[in-house]
């Protein structure tokens, strides 16, 4: 297992040794995606506080403060809104392939789809979840680009056959130095661009379970390409990687929080 985890870094070293403008092979591009995943992988539990805002032309803003929990080993995720008061206790719970929504004011659960707009914003479940790009997609190096002060690899990712993902095609701009994602574009099966996201600010924390550092985007700016005036801002304020209570990823736990 440990050898498997070191493999991306060996490939990464190989990448760094190549001439800057040389194209990456498909294997190298996929290795780069594995590095992106690996930098964000935690292995253990995760708790983060977030701010989420949706702005649309001619409409009132949606603004939330909340907490999200992850247990990546079991593929579990919980998002709970804490503010504003009217939204307090509402939340999402992902258990394996199921995404549930809980409305604390009503006390009922509803099954939601993979494309659920979290809290009515342009963010979706994947923006809160562990990065599993290499598991879900095949990569191709389509060129290099400059984003402000950064040189970036531009990779095109296509969903692996038989894997159910929200977006069949992605385009990633990966910082050639840090290997952090700077920009991401998501496309529909027809090739239509749906979302463009920017990750201008990355933070690293020490993970006891991983025994190393974990990177996460502190700020995420999502622009809706179908409705150009719509945009979402997500800010992750604090991350705690220590173990969570065993029963936290259950419906009963979330129900109990707002009783």
């Amino acid at each position, binding site marked *: 297992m440990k050898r498997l985890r070191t493999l991306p870094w060996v490939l990464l070293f190989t990448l760094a040794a190549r001439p800057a403008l040389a194209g990456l092979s498909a294997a190298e591009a996929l290795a780069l995606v594995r590095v992106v995943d690996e930098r964000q992988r935690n292995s253990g539990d995760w708790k983060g506080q977030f701010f989420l*805002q949706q702005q*649309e032309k001619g409409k009132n803003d949606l*603004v939330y403060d909340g907490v999200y929990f992850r247990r990546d080993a079991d593929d579990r995720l919980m998002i709970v809104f804490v503010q504003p008061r009217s939204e307090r206790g509402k939340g999402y719970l992902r*258990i394996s392939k199921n995404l549930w929504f809980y409305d604390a004011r*009503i006390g009922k659960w509803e099954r939601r789809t993979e494309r659920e707009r979290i809290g009515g914003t342009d963010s979706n479940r994947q923006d809160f979840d562990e990065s599993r790009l290499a598991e879900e997609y095949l990569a191709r190096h389509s060129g290099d680009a400059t984003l402000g002060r950064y040189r970036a690899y531009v990779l095109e990712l296509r969903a692996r056959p038989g894997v159910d993902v929200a977006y069949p095609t992605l385009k990633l701009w990966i910082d050639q130095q840090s290997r952090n994602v700077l920009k991401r574009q998501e496309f529909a099966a027809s090739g239509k661009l749906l979302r463009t996201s920017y990750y201008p600010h990355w*933070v690293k924390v020490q993970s006891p379970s991983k025994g190393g550092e974990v990177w996460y985007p502190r700020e995420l*700016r999502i622009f809706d390409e179908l409705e150009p005036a719509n945009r979402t801002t997500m800010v992750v304020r604090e991350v705690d990687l220590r173990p969570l209570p065993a029963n936290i990823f259950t*419906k009963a736990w979330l*129900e109990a929080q707002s009783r």
Partner: protein
Amino acid sequence: MSAPRGRWGRLGALLSAEGSLLWQTLPVVARISLRNLRLHRLRTLLVGSILLLGTLLLLSGSCLFEAVDQAMERTLVNSVAGHIQLYRAGAKESFQLFGNMDGSMPDVGVIENFPALRRALLQLDNVATVVPMGIDIAVSSTENLLERQLAALRAAVRSGDLARQRALAQHLQRVIAVFDRSLSNAEALIDVARYKREYGDPDLALARVRRPDFWSRFEADPYDALEYLENEVGPLGLDQDLIWLRYLGTDTALFRQTFDRFEVVDGTMIPPGQRGFLFNKRVYEEQVKNKTARRLDLIKEKLDEGLTIARCPDCQSWIRLNVNQTGSLLMQLDPLAAEAVGAALRRELGGGKQQSTAQLLRELLAMDDQNFAARHALFYRVVAPRLELYSIKFGDELVLTAFARGSGYTRKVPVKVYGTFRFRSLDRSPLAGGFNLVDLMSFRELYGYLTPERRREQETLRRRAGVKAVTRAQAEALFAAPGEVVEEQGRGAAPAAPAGLDLGPSTGRYDAALQRRVYSQSELDHGVVVNAAVMLKDGSRAAQRRTLEQLRTLNRRLGLGVAAIGWREASGVVGQLVDVIRYALYGAMLVIFLVALIIVNNALLLATLERTREIGTLRAIGAQRSFVLRMIVAETVVMVAVFGGCGAALGSAALLWLGHHGIPATTDFFHFLFSGPRLYPALAWSQVALALASCALVALIATLSPARLALRVTPREAMAEGD
């Protein structure tokens, strides 16, 4: 005696002389005319029939239209529209009570200060009531049977009701067993490969549930078993139903007082000042009722209309669906109910002991013209009482989900269902019968108006997050801004791991106390009101016009900030339907009269040509042109009087008969158009006079060119023709 002076004097003298001559020659002219009409019977009958038919059609058409117009006005005004509708002045779209053509509701904003508006309007003498309203569309999910059962079981576990928990667990076990058996046919119903990709292998998911110890150990750890069932087994039930509901939020007590077409059909009215929901009876039957039972109702309706199953392709299709979907029917029956249904059907249908309940149900539902009546009755006697006939029952909580107007985000509000209602006469109209009723407080929460308090709360959250506004154009500059830190060291000391979130009770939780709360009139009046219906004391058309003008003047003077429109305009397509019918009627009458004009004209022209010799002879013996003209016109007048009169009499008799017996509405469209099951037209003498006048006008116009031809005939021409 001196000669008259001047042009007008001479004309007066001429008319006076003509008048005197007319009276003197009238008996002769009348005799000649009647003789001519008798002589040319065929022509007389042809022209006369056309005049008779035209008069009859015009009279009956205009009276029928008037009846439809008045019926629709009564229905719309007294069911939901009121005489006048008010909405915010300068709104983005114009108000449409029944929504846009695409089914959406127009965005008309909200009325700024409803209490002040109502106070001002009640100063007008003719204003009786002003009813606050708001109309929108919500969706409600009935979930699939499996998920409904799971939700009920979770609620029972949560409440600690062990008896209910056991009963529900037993039923759920049966539902899953039936579902398990039906999986063998799954390939025919669903894309199994895709299903497995999305939800995993159903066989694998059910393996744990098939083990006998799963259910025997259920009570030991119900939450663990529930989590498994909800996440692994729940998605297997694919038949989730979404109900789309157009709802009208209002002060329900005031609404009931104001609109006399409103009546509760089943259940009870929402208690005054409380939250609650009433289903439109039609919606309840169509969308909430068990599908098999509903299809049987539809077949019965068709047969009651005189159709037979053999001649009704829809009925045959409904029967096929019922037979194919006995599995879902069986799933709804708990073990005891299934056994009882099986025994009763075996007895009634004469089936053998080896026949299963599923086979017996299929046999029951395979209906034809011979057995329909008996089997329909058998279904309602034996099966229906043991089914969940309606997925939402009175007293249940219905969760309405609507897109908030302000943000576009969905909002959910649970409301207690009190019963069903109908607007008398509108209930069978799919277009106008689709309103459901909800209290004003629930409507406001679904509307999602951003209050100043909530706006301040958002500002605080934004400030705390310290987020800068970045537009799309500025996004790439995030990577170029000097001093922008892309990587930084995370916090060394992480906060303590959470034992809980300690959210405390959720604000405004929709608990039983909230559902029971009685809101004061002031609370009902102060808040979001999208539109308001004004009901007048005197609803005559003239009074409506007068009050609308007074209201508009008051609105300008006091700056009330509303737009006021009449019921017809507010009813949009529905109200304009009457105009469409009106124009169609006028168009049809115009065409009929044009055709009549041409036929009558040709017939009279031919008759005049035939009579050239006779006219010439008359002229030769001293008859003036005016005498010839009088003779021709007299013939037309006699025809109008006789045949137009007959048409008017026949039309009047038919209208009097229809006014007594009524015209039956054979389809839902006519039901709506007639504002009820029958239309009772009334005979109006003004319409009789109008029809006769129109008939006379057409006949006289048709006489113009024959008369002109007759006047040109000279004695010499007549003689020459004779030679």
